[in-house]
């Protein structure tokens, strides 16, 4: 093994590099606030050195590769030699090169039957995409074009290309990136350590039953392929029961469904075998590989394809679509030499030996209170942390790798609650001992602080009937339950088969978690995907929870958006209507807004919530509602298309109607939007009428800056109370401006927590911003009639602590985002 050389990077250079890195590079999975950088400059075997001269022991192989270790001059020379001869030429069409031909032949020789052909890519993600495309094309060519569905598995990882990410069963790779590839269904994988996932059933039986039911539900003749990792890697090194894959394979074959085994992690020795498929006795139709193929000396992947599939793909016009660097001559030469090293140095055997040794030492950690299970397959190890082994409640592993690195100079990784170790296969026994000692020391201390978590009580299925009259769900909005109580009750209600809506029950099948078990805190609501896009075409009847019974209920349907696409719809049930108007009216009483006066709503009605809500409040408070309608979609279209003259004439038309009412009627409350209020202020007569007649102006539906609010307060309507309102149709409600704000304090809003709660997040990371900082608003609605969790609003705001006596976050200084979903937001037009 080449020793690490003398340092040629000075610490001051390291600082310059780090600074440049921070300003120039986008790192995957790096939170915005992290400024630390570890700049690697050289490696040998399992050892690495950074730009400061610090040495590290690599117990991750980078990202589960590095099989032959770092710093192999032999591979560099092979690459240089090939580059000197022919660095690259396209493998499209009839072109080829000797190293790629040799490598393909070598791989087919190593792979289990019936792999006969190889398709080269630049990495595993591309190979996954290619496999999915090939699977669909295979059926298409065979006269079954409707076979497009892809079965994948929760917790599976298949890369972050759109095809691969769609198959990946980890929500973080979907959140904010949707819509994903359609026709993908995620199933439950067997995870014997988590019996709570299977309701008392044997995990394999559960998974097979679920697979059979899914095939039946979708229809075998509509399913193209299933994809899975033989051993769940990123999810925590989870090996399935021995009979799982063979039985899955047989069931799929019975229905003509192809199988892709994603062996990006497991192939080329990581498990002690060339391929995990052979070890498990599985005969897939595709094997996806990368990582160990070149040990990281060249970015490269290889998709191995069974002969019966390849025959179909190769016929007619062949397989359309390739990658520029597929079959790269230098990459293939490096891969061949890398396979030589694996073979020559018996690194597959080393993986078994060192992996077994490391596993033995680390398995003792299971005695620690915070360690749930230590799992080892070859030279990959997962240590799952748990707050309580009885409930499986996870304990975050985030801090473990930094501690191990800082204290011991050893690099390991983690997923949310599992410590992951996957060193190069050349790791020595002594180095493995160092890793074991370091991890043991840190975990012993780290888990000593963990405690058995008190599980939030959730309603049992047998209590469904009583939950229909749940005191929690029926609590008045003025007297709210606690958030945990409400969460438990709403999750049970909306996801129990007898009470949940068709929409949520169907949607639950595609969730990577069980809401009735996994949603215990407000933060857990972030597990939900943002479903509002699905509300554009859902049947509104499907949104009604079944627990309301079969009787026809008078519904109100409200819409949001509709300018750039189909509008999103929500259902207002009578009890929500009653709860909300009662709460609104209570707030208005508390603010001293007069009862018995007439209201004038100047704003959108039709499918919009704005005017109907005002009308309901006027009725409730003993006033007559007057309305002047406005079609915001028309106004926004005019603005977006630059048709300012049309917008101007429409505004004049609206103001004409306002004038007719203000001149002839008594109006005590005006409910409108800031832009319309500005337009009213421009009309001297209307401004004078409002100043003389109207005691309260409630403004909502758009943002208002401090200066404009000050002008309204002091110059335009000095005698009239101004009351801001911030709401969202998508969560069916809103909140009023906090009282007593001075001119330099932005409008601040406290939600009716816990029924409506808000988070303010960094849109790039999804993390909650600190108090006082601006981020994008996420709202949740939790009630008996509606569940809208994790709804990303098109607003930014400053996150503030709640007002005295209230709970949950407040938001201030609402401003529209510039773009939303890739579309420029048109604001301030109504």
């Amino acid at each position, binding site marked *: 093994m080449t020793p690490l050389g003398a340092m040629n990077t000075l610490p001051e250079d390291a600082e310059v590099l780090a600074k440049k890195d921070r300003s120039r590079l986008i790192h995957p999975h790096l939170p915005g606030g992290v400024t630390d950088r570890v700049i690697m400059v050289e490696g040998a075997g399992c050892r690495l050195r950074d730009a400061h001269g610090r040495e590290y022991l690599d117990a991750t192989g980078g990202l589960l590769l590095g099989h032959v270790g770092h710093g192999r001059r032999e591979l560099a020379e092979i690459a240089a030699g090939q580059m000197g001869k022919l660095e690259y030429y396209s493998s499209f069409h009839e072109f080829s090169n000797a190293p790629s031909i040799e490598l393909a032949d070598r791989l087919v020789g190593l792979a289990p039957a019936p792999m006969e052909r190889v398709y080269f890519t630049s990495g595993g993600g591309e190979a996954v995409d290619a496999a999915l495309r090939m699977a669909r094309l295979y059926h298409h060519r065979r006269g079954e074009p409707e076979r497009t569905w892809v079965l994948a598995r929760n917790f599976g990882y298949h890369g972050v290309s759109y095809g691969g990410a769609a198959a990946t069963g980890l929500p973080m790779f979907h959140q904010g990136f949707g819509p994903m590839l359609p026709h993908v269904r995620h199933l439950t994988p067997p995870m014997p350590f988590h019996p709570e996932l299977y309701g008392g059933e044997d995990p394999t039986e559960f998974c097979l039953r679920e697979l059979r039911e899914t095939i039946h539900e979708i229809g075998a003749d509509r399913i193209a392929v299933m994809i899975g990792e033989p051993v769940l890697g990123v999810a925590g090194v989870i090996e399935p029961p021995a009979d799982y894959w063979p039985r899955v394979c047989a069931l799929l074959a019975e229905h003509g469904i192809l199988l892709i085994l994603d062996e990006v992690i497991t192939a080329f020795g990581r498990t002690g075998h060339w391929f995990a498929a052979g070890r498990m006795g599985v005969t897939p139709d595709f094997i996806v590989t990368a990582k160990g193929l070149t040990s990281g000396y060249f970015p490269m992947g290889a998709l191995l394809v069974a002969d019966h599939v390849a025959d179909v793909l190769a016929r007619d016009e062949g397989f359309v679509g390739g990658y520029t660097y597929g079959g790269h001559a230098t990459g293939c030469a490096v891969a061949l030499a890398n396979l030589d090293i694996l073979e020559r140095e018996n690194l597959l055997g080393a993986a078994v030996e060192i992996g077994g040794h490391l596993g033995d030492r680390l398995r003792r950690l299971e005695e620690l209170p915070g360690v749930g299970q230590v799992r080892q397959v070859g030279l990959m190890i997962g240590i799952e942390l748990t707050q309580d082994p009885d409930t499986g409640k996870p304990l975050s592993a985030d801090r473990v790798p930094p501690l191990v690195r800082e204290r011991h100079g050893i690099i390991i990784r983690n997923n949310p609650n599992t410590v992951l170790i996957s060193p190069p296969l050349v790791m020595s026994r002594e180095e493995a001992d160092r890793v074991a000692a370091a991890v043991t020391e840190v975990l012993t201390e780290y888990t000593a602080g963990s405690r058995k978590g008190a599980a939030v009580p959730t309603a049992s299925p047998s209590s469904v009937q009583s939950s229909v009259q749940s005191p929690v769900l029926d609590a008045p909005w003025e007297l709210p339950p606690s958030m945990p109580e409400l969460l438990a009750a709403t999750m049970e209600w909306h996801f129990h088969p007898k009470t949940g809506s068709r929409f949520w029950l169907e949607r639950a099948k595609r969730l990577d978690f069980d809401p009735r078990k996994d949603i215990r805190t407000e933060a857990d609501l972030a597990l939900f995907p943002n479903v509002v896009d699905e509300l554009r075409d859902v049947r509104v009847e499907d949104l009604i929870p079944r627990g309301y019974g079969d009787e026809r209920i008078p519904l109100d349907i409200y819409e949001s958006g509709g300018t750039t696409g189909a509008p999103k719809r929500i259902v207002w049930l009578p009890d929500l209507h009653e709860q909300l108007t009662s709460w609104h009216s209570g707030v208005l009483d508390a603010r001293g807004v007069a009862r018995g006066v007439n209201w004038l709503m100047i704003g959108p009605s039709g499918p919009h919530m704005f005017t109907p809500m005002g009308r309901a409040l006027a009725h409730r408070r003993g006033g007559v509602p007057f309305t002047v309608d406005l079609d915001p979609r028309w106004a926004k279209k005019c603005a977006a298309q630059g048709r*300012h003259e049309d917008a101007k004439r429409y505004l004049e038309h609206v103001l004409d109607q306002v004038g007719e009412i203000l001149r002839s009627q008594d109006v005590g409350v005006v409910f409108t939007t800031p832009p319309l209020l*500005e337009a009213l*202020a*421009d009309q001297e007569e209307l401004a004078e009428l409002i100043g003389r007649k109207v005691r309260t102006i409630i403004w909502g539906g758009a943002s208002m*800056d*401090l*200066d*404009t609010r*000050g*002008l*309204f307060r002091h*110059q*335009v309507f000095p005698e009239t109370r101004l009351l801001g309102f911030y709401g969202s149709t998508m969560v069916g409600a809103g909140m009023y401006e906090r009282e007593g704000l001075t*001119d*330099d304090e932005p409008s601040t809003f406290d939600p009716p927590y816990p029924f409506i709660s808000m988070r303010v997040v960094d849109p790039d990371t999804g993390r909650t911003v600190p108090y006082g900082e601006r981020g994008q608003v996420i709202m949740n609605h939790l009630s008996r009639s509606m569940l809208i969790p994790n709804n990303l609003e098109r607003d930014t705001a400053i996150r503030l602590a709640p007002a005295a006596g209230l709970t949950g976050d407040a938001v201030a200084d609402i401003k529209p985002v510039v773009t939303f979903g890739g579309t420029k937001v048109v604001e*301030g037009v109504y």
Partner: protein
Amino acid sequence: MSGSPERIHLDALGPDGPYRTQEREVVPDVTGRAAVELSMVPRLYARRSLAALRRAGTLPPDERTAALAEAGRLFATATLGGLSVERYQHAVARVSGLPVSLVREATGVTGADLAGAYGFAGQARPRGSRDAPHGTGNAVWIRRGDVLAALTAGNHPGLHGQWAQALALGYRVAVRPSRREPLSAHRLVTALHEAGFGTDRVVLLPTDHGVADILVEGADLAMVYGGDDVVDRYRGRTTVLPHGPGRAKILITSDTDGTRHLDTIVDSVARQAGAACVNTTAVFVEGDPAPVAEAIAGRLAGLPSLPPQDDGAVLPVCRVDTARHLEKFVHAAADGARGWLGGDTIVAELGDGSAVLRPAVFQLDRADAPQARLEMPFPCVWVAPWSRADGLAPLRDTLVLTALTSDQELIGRLLDAPAIRNLHVGDHRTDVLVPGLPADGYLGEFLMRSKTFTNGAPRGLAASTA
């Protein structure tokens, strides 16, 4: 306006006087340090200010002439809003990066422009038109509206004398200052208020782009400074007068030895720090352009790199990163051209975060090369060959053309070309305006029109206007 050595606060100047907003924009100096804090008015305030201007009456001509002269005097000499003239000039130099000597010169010019505004504006009056009815029948020169919005630029502090002519003609004016250099517009509006123009006759409304559109749409007429985008946007709008890039040019025909006119050429490129729209962008040479380019480069290479507040400064200064971006842009544009000067770098860092933009001279290989239209905010000139076969096409879209030629037939064709808006023949710098002659047409041509008035009513019922 109030000021401290650290930061100058500029309030909006509305119909009710100074207005300090919560929304402020920080204007940095050339080192990037916050130098000015500017109150940015919201849409509602802008609309109410326009309404106030519309309600206000017009001062009688003699009063406004006197007030303009007094405002000019105050602008050029007085302490206004806590800023002495020296401190104002220093601040403008630090913020805009223009040499302080240029700012001083512009201060004097603006003062003189205001004193002469009524006379300058009157140059556009058609023969036979009068400002007021006279006798029983004549043409009366009347305003096309009441309120003008002036969206000004920050590339030169001397351009504000322009919109002041509208005041001279009786307009009420809403000025939106440049956010890059708002000090000059603020000082001028302050001077006008102190000189007797009511706060409801001229207002200063710093705004973002969205509210600026409200000003253009809400006023009767608007003059707008900007780039090609502005010109394209308002092309064809009879109520908006856009001022875009000047793309000034010099033409040297074969009967003239260009090197004998080197002073004129070099000054045209580099005076005004090369930042004005009348600075020469391209020099066209009939014959070999290389000797001319070489000679210009030789002269420009000697200009010193000094901070803007230095009395000897002649070149513009900006933040280092801005300078590097400009350099990258110019070098990319100059790809394929021969660099006589500035081909390696145009940036001379001053060590405090600022950098001098050094001159650049590039030689092009054909008259219609697109780079010849590239106007930069520093002395940057493109020297290209020109032949009779190229015709006038490369010379069009030009605010000022100086023709060094004795070819009378060519001069006649240049004079007839409407896309060449000003023509000098012989030794006349492109950046020197001739007092009393139009800079880009007369502003009065845009602001006013003639109207027939005959009066057959009994004496004593004559209308009056002004």
